[in-house]
């Protein structure tokens, strides 16, 4: 089913935590709201659920205006970060609670609970209480309770953030598979860009209550709309150096590089991703020059952090640049190196507004 948010805003007194968020989630789509803590993503989700009032704007589920409808009548299921399992009920009672409220016949409830529990591998634990379960199992009970009644849409508020790293990876795959199998519209809130990139059909990046970009993970990564999205998505994050541009060259205190944009403009930020640049000899033409600050072997690659030697100035510490290098990279810390940045893989941003500068 379609979930539409039409310019919804939320203010607490004089503070506006969400500015006119608009998005349409298509049937069976997995949409992730991504942003740092305090960006308004959880507020947006809670407004969709009906747990927070809407200051302005409209919420439509399947074309129907539900802005003033009570949570219980919106036909949504939510998975909370804390799981919010009822501690005084068994796993089976927890999963069956939405059906009990809907006054389904006993036998029917039992059948559906068993079926759903089997889907999330909880069949052996139906008589246990939440306190007797591990974190991952509790998470699965919360999921089962959400899917048991086939709601119009799932809302998930950082459902994986209380799990340890290994289990999180596993549950991520489970979630993706389940959402695909059930084909239920899902809005998922997270601050973890890996979760966003791996799970989403589309990602909505929020910052300080404002929408930054709504697009597929691929385009969010390859074609960021502004400096915030560019810096927030990607691990390690994009490198930035400050400077001016003129005559198809970027000139900063740290570097002078050829770029693809033929415009003349002052005060810009040049961005490039760690995997797009290479460590080369320090005397190569058109490259940044610096020395190795540290090297970290990650497994299949090495992260090389370099300090750029400022041109002329020398007293100020230069910018830090991270380069993703081959795993065979083995140069000493302190070695002078050059960093080659291919002109076609760079991004330019206006330093004041943060907006992306594109060739017109």
């Amino acid at each position, binding site marked *: 089913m379609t979930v539409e948010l039409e310019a919804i805003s939320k203010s607490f007194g004089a503070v506006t935590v969400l500015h006119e968020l608009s998005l349409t989630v298509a049937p069976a789509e997995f949409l992730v709201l991504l942003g740092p803590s305090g960006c308004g993503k959880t507020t947006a989700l809670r407004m969709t659920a*009906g747990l927070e009032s809407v200051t302005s704007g409209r919420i439509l589920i399947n074309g129907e205006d539900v802005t003033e409808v009570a949570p219980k009548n919106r036909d949504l299921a939510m998975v909370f970060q804390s799981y919010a399992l009822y*501690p005084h009920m068994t796993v089976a009672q927890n999963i069956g609670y939405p059906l009990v409220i809907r006054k389904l016949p006993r036998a029917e409830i039992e059948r559906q609970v068993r079926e759903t529990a089997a889907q999330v591998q909880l069949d052996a634990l139906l008589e246990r209480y939440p306190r007797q379960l591990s974190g991952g199992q509790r998470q699965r009970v919360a999921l089962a309770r959400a899917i048991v009644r086939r709601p119009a849409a799932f809302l998930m508020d950082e459902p994986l953030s209380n799990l340890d790293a290994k289990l999180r990876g596993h549950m991520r795959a489970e979630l993706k598979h389940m959402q695909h199998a059930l084909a239920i519209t899902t809005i998922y809130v997270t601050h973890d860009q890996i979760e966003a990139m791996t799970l989403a059909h589309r990602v909505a990046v929020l910052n300080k209550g404002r929408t930054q970009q709504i697009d597929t993970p691929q385009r969010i990564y390859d074609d960021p709309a502004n400096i915030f999205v560019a810096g927030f998505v990607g691990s390690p994050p994009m490198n930035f150096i400050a400077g001016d541009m003129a005559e198809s060259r970027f000139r900063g205190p740290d570097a002078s590089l050829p770029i693809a944009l033929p415009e003349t403009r002052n005060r810009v930020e040049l961005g490039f991703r760690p995997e797009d640049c290479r460590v080369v000899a320090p005397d190569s033409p058109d490259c940044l020059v610096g020395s190795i600050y540290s090297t970290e072997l990650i497994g299949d690659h090495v992260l090389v952090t370099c300090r750029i030697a400022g041109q002329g100035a020398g007293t100020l510490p230069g910018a830090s640049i991270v380069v993703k290098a081959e795993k065979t990279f083995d140069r000493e810390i302190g070695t002078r190196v050059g960093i080659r940045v291919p002109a076609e893989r760079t991004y330019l941003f206006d330093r004041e507004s943060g907006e992306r500068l594109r060739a017109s």
Partner: protein
Amino acid sequence: MSTRRRARPSGIFRARRLGSLSPAGACLVYGLLGFWTVIVLFPLYWLVITSFKLPIDVAYPPKYLPFLDFQPSLHAWRYIFVDLGNDTRRPYFNSLIVASCSTVLAVLAGSMAAYGLSRIEYKPRIASILTFILLLALTSAAIMFFHVDWRIAGLAGLAIFFLAARALARRWRAHLGNSDILFWMISQRILPPVVAALPIYVMFQQLGLLDTRFALIVTYMTVNLPIVVWLMYDFFTGIPKDLEESASLDGASRYRIFFQIVLPLAKPGLIATALLVLILAWNEYLLALFLSTARAQTMPILVAAQNGTRGPQWWYMSALIVIMIAPVVALTVATQKYIAKGLLLGAVKG
């Protein structure tokens, strides 16, 4: 929940188990504990043996051990069960009805009020409150001094209140909050009950309800309500809101959430509160003295009545008190595990 582990204290703060004490230490500790147990339980023991004493044995010097110091007698028990007969059973039954009904009502209404206060933000306008008090005073004055018909005065007062409160509240936006309401509730208990006893007496007299169990139930419920609200408020604020939000998305109404999610989770607090209120109602003397004469008389009144013209009849009083405290002791023992949990829950929230 289970993932939260209590930090193990180390060094000098490490708690020692009783079993790991040296023999001398163990003797000292158990000696002290035993001594305190005797101090606590001796009055109960004295009560029980006094109920088996003849008047002569109650006199000075004290006699401590049945069969050795004195010969136990059943005369007091025969008196309260055979001679008094119905006059014991009726107050006992009254006490049971009054205490249990008032407790159930107070806990039900009080926990609902406490839940409302813990989850919904109320903003009573100061303007409305002042208007209400002023008009209440004016209406009373009109009835008392100017002999206006009370129905007309009441209706007029109410009508003016709604008009004035709306107009004033638009101008004057200052308001109170939930903590003020909560304090107002508990402030009702700051007043000594004897101050309220006379107006309550007059009210029930006018209503023709003196010496009825109904009057006592209503009074005890009202008097105990603030305690229930105050205690339950604390328990409810300790229950995570996530659970209720989850239930509301699952399709549950406010009432269903309250009765199926919140109340079961607050059970320890609920039982501890109910027991406290029950004991207060069970032992209440002053208001019962005002509101009951014969038919609705409760046990505390009957016990006090044994201090009559012939002087205090310790033996009858003791027997009556023994049967009076028996159900409370039984109930406390039965709900002990909840009370311990309830006390803890109040102390460390979460």
